[in-house]
């Protein structure tokens, strides 16, 4: 039962993370392959501040601000390039972030990571706190969902889609493209930081090994599997990916073969990513349903 709670909390946190990426990748058409850095910034800032004695809620707010500011600082120069170059620039940014976490031992304790990150005061530590944390994560995910739905349904969201489809047209309508993109990235980064703090305070231990290329690939898989540019797509994708990942543990696998489980899972994730790109690039919930003509 506790395990089921754990899986549900993970799925909720991952859906927040996937929704934040979808805002950039799905709605604005910005292929951010370094989104995990903002997840990591949220996690590290929040963990370090709460270790320093700041109340958890205040630490979380600071973490969101830090992620947002970093997002703006990255966005302004990185938006000079577009398409696949933007993807590489952000991917490299995430790797730089990870190297800094790995090397600045005085701050992050390097590869040892930060243990003992406290939960918010009203949630009990350990297993007793799990139902309360589930509620917290659920409220957080619903809040994110509602926020993104309102944002993307607003004129701002529609303008983002126009920019994604045709920049020149958006420009002709008098939209400041750079400003729109920067705003999308800042919003996406704040929400990714939000997912990061939720995760850090839940799992209570973080290290640079949690913010690698593998996480980028996983969250990318959540978004493209569920459906880019839709509200429910990333949620469905995240739930599918997390539940699939955890369900593998219940398969009757003899102990001698357990070392093969993780690579096999990786092969399947990578394979799904390739197959989606080839067979259903719009994911499980396509943005535009085919109309019967």
């Amino acid at each position: 039962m506790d395990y089921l709670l754990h899986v549900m909390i993970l799925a909720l946190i991952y859906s927040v993370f996937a929704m934040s990426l979808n805002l950039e990748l799905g709605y604005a058409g910005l292929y951010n392959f370094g989104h995990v850095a903002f997840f990591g910034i949220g996690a590290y800032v929040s963990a370090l501040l709460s270790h320093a004695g700041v109340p958890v809620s205040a630490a979380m707010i600071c973490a969101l601000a830090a992620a947002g500011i970093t997002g703006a600082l990255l966005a302004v120069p990185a938006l000079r390039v577009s398409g696949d170059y933007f993807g590489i620039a952000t991917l490299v940014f995430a790797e730089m972030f990870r190297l800094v976490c790995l090397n600045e031992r005085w701050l992050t304790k390097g590869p040892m990571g930060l243990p003992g990150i406290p939960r918010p005061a009203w949630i009990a530590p350990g297993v007793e706190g799990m139902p309360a944390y589930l509620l917290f994560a659920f409220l957080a995910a619903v809040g994110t969902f509602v926020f993104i739905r309102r944002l993307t349904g607003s004129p701002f969201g529609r303008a983002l889609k126009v920019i994604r489809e045709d920049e020149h047209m958006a420009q002709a309508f008098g939209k400041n493209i750079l400003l729109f993109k920067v705003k999308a990235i800042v919003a996406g980064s704040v929400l990714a930081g939000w997912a990061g703090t939720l995760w850090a305070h839940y799992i209570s231990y973080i290290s640079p090994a949690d913010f690698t290329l593998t996480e980028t690939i996983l969250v990318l898989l959540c978004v493209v599997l569920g459906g880019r540019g839709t509200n429910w797509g990333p949620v469905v994708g995240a739930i599918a990916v997390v539940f699939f990942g955890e369900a593998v543990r219940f398969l009757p696998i003899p102990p001698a073969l357990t070392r093969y489980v993780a690579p096999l899972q990786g092969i399947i994730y990578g394979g799904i990513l390739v197959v989606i790109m080839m067979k259903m690039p719009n994911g499980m919930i396509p943005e535009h349903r085919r109309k019967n003509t």
Partner: protein
Amino acid sequence: MSYYLQLLLNGVIAGSVYALFAVGLTLVYGVFRFINFAHAELISWGAYLTLMFSSPPVSWPLCLAVIPAVLLTAFIGFSQDWFIYRPLRRGSPITLLIASIGLSYMLRNVLRLIWGSDLMTFSLPLARGFEFSGYYVTGIQLLMLAAALLFLMILYLLLTKSLMGKSLRATADNLELAAIMGVSMPKVSAVVWTLASVFAAAGGILLALDTNLEPMMGVANLIKAFAAVLLGGAGNVWGALLGGLFIGIAENLGVAFFSPGYKDFVSFAVIFLLLLFRPRGIFGLLTGVR
């Protein structure tokens, strides 16, 4: 002073191998206009397949084991293109990039499935380095330098002196126009993938001989190759070569000034700064072979 010269020497050796990776990556980009992330896996598969053929049950001597390993890597390169990239070529470069990221992850996990995630080495006898008036190089490092020179020489002759090289350059310049003029696309694509795979595998094997094998070796070196490609301007073969040398030297000299933990930071910073300020590369050999 001699300390810096030694670092410079190491840099040139490392850079010559990076150049091998970068040249293949840039050739593929030049012709097909997308960043093949799975190039990384050609590097590590070349090394791991050599390990497979040189260890029991096959136990061929190393120089013989290299041949089937390189051939199989080329086969992987072909299959990538044939089964995945060719059907996707009509889509956007982003679709291809995501597919190649997925493919890279898949191939990397196949490596882990077969050989595990631990560090592995070729069981080479310990060899003493050569000393040239105070500077040290190992036999393997000399081999790296020689092999890189040989491969790049072959590439130079192929691109500038043969008809195939001419059609390759024409395709890189304008794919549609080249096809209209009767350049055989299947042939060009076969040559590009063969070159990219063979260069990647050769570089991977050399690196593995010098250090060790691990599943992430491909990705780590791909990022350096990518920095080299950007330095030269994407699609520019000689630019990529110079870029590879530059990255190798910069990274090794950097060790003298900051903590070795940040060695990889050099290529990251180069990529980042170039993308932001000079996305066309600084070795602007616009008239050179693209």
